[in-house]
């Protein structure tokens, strides 16, 4: 167990932390009480395992894969997947469909059809195969998404109905929602302040350290602290960052990334490179950050109107702050 290093006197009750891989990305955990670390880890792992079994698009045995396979008919699902779907549809409703779980088919058509580590490897292999090699991937066929209203959740029967040809992807919302659930569960189990980060989407629960939780905001959650960005503190709620600078791959000679505009089915325009948003929960922060990338030039006014502190970075590195984001 390691006590984390900090040169800040107000953080003398230093949190301790762990890092591991789950949900196809990195999970980080911080707790205020060193003795509670393993208990918090168990709670977080339990939550994430259950969510992975329910919501993964890349696990053959996941419920979501079964739902997507049975598109065109109704499928009974667990309460956990129902809640994840409800959360995804709530995000779609709050953004007029800018964050839409029915982008699954568009992502597959764009070449994002497997776990990203495998995709990165395939992309690198095909890039290194030489000019004479035949590209192993089909031509990109872009199409707009069917729309979140096409998904029917039937509470009475506990089932979900997808129209034929529709595939769901909960990647955008499920990680942030999982961070909220995991932080709440861990804080409850260890009765202390907890911070959970899943692929850069961060949720806090319980009492924070005296100086707050320190977070370095940057393009890529895997970066170290020397990466360009800003270090801030939060005390509760959530913070999420969406970026077009990560999860990039080559598909049939085109540079692709994972933030899809549901209206076109194509990766979003390059108005912003990275958007970070603070909100009352990580799920809400993630919805706002992803929608901001889709809304492009209109994002700043929208975030300001909602009163969500946000930091938007343009492709040239210039930074725009709204709604009280600190300098």
């Amino acid at each position, binding site marked *: 167990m*390691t006590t*984390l*290093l900090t*040169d*800040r006197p107000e953080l003398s009750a230093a949190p301790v932390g762990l*890092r*591991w891989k789950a949900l196809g*990305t990195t999970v980080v955990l911080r707790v205020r009480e060193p003795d509670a670390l393993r208990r918090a*880890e168990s709670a977080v792992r339990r939550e994430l395992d259950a969510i992975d079994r329910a919501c993964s698009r890349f696990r053959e045995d996941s419920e979501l894969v079964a739902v997507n396979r049975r598109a065109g008919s109704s499928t009974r699902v667990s309460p956990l997947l129902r809640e994840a779907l409800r959360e995804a549809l709530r995000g779609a409703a*709050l*953004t*007029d*469909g*800018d964050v839409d779980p029915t982008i699954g088919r568009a992502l597959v058509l764009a070449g994002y059809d497997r776990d990203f580590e495998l995709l990165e490897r395939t992309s690198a292999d095909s890039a290194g195969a030489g000019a004479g090699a035949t590209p192993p991937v089909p031509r990109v066929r872009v199409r707009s998404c069917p*729309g979140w*209203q096409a998904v029917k959740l039937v509470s009475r029967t506990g089932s979900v109905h997808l129209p034929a040809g529709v595939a769901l992807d909960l990647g955008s919302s499920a990680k942030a929602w999982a961070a909220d659930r995991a932080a709440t569960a861990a804080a409850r189990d260890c009765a202390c302040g907890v*911070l959970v*980060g899943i692929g850069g989407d*961060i949720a806090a629960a319980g009492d924070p350290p005296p100086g707050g939780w*320190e*977070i*370095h*905001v940057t*393009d*890529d959650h895997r*970066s170290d*602290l*020397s*990466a*360009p*960005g*800003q*270090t*801030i*503190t*939060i005390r*509760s709620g*959530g*913070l*999420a*960052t969406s970026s077009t*600078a*990560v999860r990039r791959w080559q598909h049939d000679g085109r540079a692709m990334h994972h933030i899809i505009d549901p209206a076109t089915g194509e990766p*979003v325009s390059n108005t912003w490179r*990275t958007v970070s948003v*603070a*909100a009352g929960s990580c799920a*809400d922060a993630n919805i706002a950050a992803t929608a901001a990338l889709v*809304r*492009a030039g*209109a994002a700043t*006014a929208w975030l300001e109107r909602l*009163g969500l*502190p946000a930091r938007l*970075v343009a492709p040239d*590195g210039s*930074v725009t*702050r709204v*709604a009280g*984001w600190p300098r």
Partner: protein
Amino acid sequence: MRNHTTHTRDASLRRLSRINRWLIAGSIVLTGVLADVAANAFHGKSKASSSSSGTKRTSTSKSSESGTLTKPEQSPEASTGSSGDDSSSGESSSSESSGSESSGSESGSAESTESTESTESSGSSSEESSGVVTSGGS
């Protein structure tokens, strides 16, 4: 004979009146059912339009503008012990622009940043040596 004709007429009028009432009620119910079927048959769409500063989205629906994305209880604060913040990458003076502040710049992008993930093994956890957590795209 005359009595019989009057009775017949009155009975026919009552029958017609009843039929009319049923027809009106039926058409109201049918209108409702058809409206519900039509509402569920076609999903709404967001309308995108272009502007000079990039793609700007306008919405056909105002439903989401009620703003139920929850604000944080407290806004984030600048960290006093921060490293690698905007000021270290050449922040310029701020200016107000349509309700938002635009300032500073940061160089580099994800492609140029260093990954710390290579030391992690899937499933097993490693202890952290820094109290600062990174929030970035994933």
